[in-house]
Structure formats: structure tokens, C-alpha cells
């Protein structure tokens, strides 16, 4: 039965990296980066998830089909996020002249 066997050192190294990245996430959260805090936290999470997927879940050593399946899942998740947000992020773009018959100005944040 074939199947890649990870050396234990790889597993321990990945674990250590994940711990370091967790520490970084928490530390960075206390630094005021303004609007960048969210993307930075997300990026670190993505790196951590990638490490788990590639090494703990062996995707790095898996077939092309497995890699395709993983990519497909995230691709469609991104479709859900981005296409939905095209609605929300562009709602305020169309402004009407104020006057009789015009709809009220759209508000987002309350």
C-alpha cells in the first residue's frame, strides 16, 4: 500500500511554525495597523491553514486530483464571498439627485 510517510521531524517543525504564527497573530493584534489589521490576521491564518493542508493533511504529497479537489473547494468559497460583496460594496455608488420621486439616499453603516 503506497502513501507518503512524513518523517516525524516534519510534523514537529510544522507544529512549531504554527505556534510561532499563532504568537505573531496575537502580538500583531495589539499593534494598531488601522485597516490593515484584518488583512494581516487573515493572511497569517491562511498561511497556517496552508501548512496544515500541505503537511498534516499530506496534500503536498498527494495526487493531482486531491490538489484539484482542495483548490476547487476554496475557489467556490471565494466565489461566494467576492460575488456577494460586489453587491454590498457597490450599493452606495449610484446616487440620485434629491427631489420628488427620487429614492432616499442609501445608507450602509448605522
Amino acid at each position: 500500500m503506497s502513501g507518503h510517510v512524513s518523517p516525524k521531524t516534519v510534523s514537529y517543525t510544522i507544529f512549531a511554525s504554527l505556534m510561532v504564527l499563532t504568537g505573531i497573530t496575537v502580538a500583531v493584534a495589539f499593534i494598531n495597523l488601522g485597516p490593515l489589521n484584518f488583512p494581516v490576521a487573515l493572511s497569517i491564518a491562511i498561511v497556517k491553514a496552508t501548512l496544515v493542508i500541505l503537511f498534516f493533511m499530506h496534500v503536498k504529497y498527494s495526487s493531482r486530483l486531491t490538489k484539484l479537489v482542495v483548490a476547487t473547494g476554496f475557489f467556490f468559497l471565494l466565489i461566494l464571498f467576492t460575488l456577494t460583496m460586489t453587491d454590498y460594496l457597490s450599493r452606495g455608488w449610484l446616487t440620485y439627485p434629491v427631489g420628488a420621486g427620487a429614492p432616499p439616499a442609501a445608507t450602509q453603516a448605522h
Partner: protein
Amino acid sequence: MSDSASAEASAGRHHAALQHQFDTMEQQQESATLGMWVFLVTEVMFFGGLFMAYLLYRVWYPAAWADGSRELDILLGGVNTVVLIGSSLTMALAVRAAQTGFPRATVNWLLATMALGGVFLVIKVFEYAHKVELNHVPGPNFVFEGPHARQVEIFLSLYFAMTGLHALHMVIGFGLLSVIAWMAYKRKFSPEWYAPVEMSGLYWHFVDIVWIFLFPLLYLVDRAH
């Protein structure tokens, strides 16, 4: 075909665990793994709906998101993150042990995974109990002092929905692992057939990945003030 290859092939054909619809153990193992991966894709989309709601309302209500996040305990969340990632390590080592034919190590690493998972769930129970105490559970008894109470309620609804669904998956995983640990104890696994351990590993890592996102998204919003 050489002798060892044909021996291996016929072992693949006559293994006790070979199901009737498959021709070889390899085909069975590959099918099981592919099936678990496809299932995990469904789980990604399942949680994805909640993340979508989270994304929208975070963009709409940044202040409420900050207020709500501050109500969560970073220490407990952080400990849980370490615990869960640790359980992923033990799970990976359990799969490796099954793969290389060490049943006792397999059982031990599986039990370690379950133990760490148990710690996670206990901490979660504490967190939830605290929230109940403070009347921070969305619904008829929700009380929140602050300017954006209704929006904080949405944040906390998503907090409970996302961590609750995650915890439910952990409980299911716990049950799954106890079955697998029992099977490992009964020496059901070998380098020829360890798919159930591998599949459980994939599931467990997935649950870990969800938490890897939940922790910063829920606990670490706007903590710099």
C-alpha cells in the same frame, strides 16, 4: 509481474477488509480518501455560509465588531488554539503510526488527540457559561451595555453559530476518534489498510483549520485600542 508484486497484488485482492465493489485494497483506500476530501469540500461550503455572513456584517458594523470581540477572552481563545493545533500534531502522528504498522502508538496518539480535544471543549463550555452569566446569549434574554447593542447581538449570534457549529464538529470528531481508537486497539489497521485513520485525520485537521480562522476573526478584532 515479479513475485513480490504479484504477492502484494493478490494480498490486495484477498484482504479481509476488501469490500465487494472494489478490486484491490489500493482502489478501496484511494476511493475512501477521495470520498473524505469531497466531504471536506462540502464542509468548507457549509461553514462558508457563516463566514459570508460574518464578512458582510464586519464590513457594515466595524465598531460593533470591535465591541463584541472585546467581550471574548483572548487567553482562553489562545490556549484553545494551541491545544487544537497540538491535537493536529498528535493526530498526524497517529496516522503515521498506523501507516508504519505501530498499533499501540496509534492508539496512544489517538487518545492524546482526544484528550486535547476534550480540553478544548471544556474551555469552550467555560466560555459559553460565562456568556450565559453575562446575558450575552442572543435571543430574548440578551442584554448589552453599549451604543451598538443590536449589532453586537449579531456579532455574538455569529460567534455562537460559528463556534457552536465548530464545537459540534469536534464532538462528532471525538466520537469518530473513539471508534477508530478502538479499532486500532483491536489491531484492525496495518500498512495495507489504515484508511479509516487517515480519513479521521483529514476530518480532524479540517476542524483545526476552521478554528485557525475563527480565532483571529472572532477574538482579535480591533484589539489595538
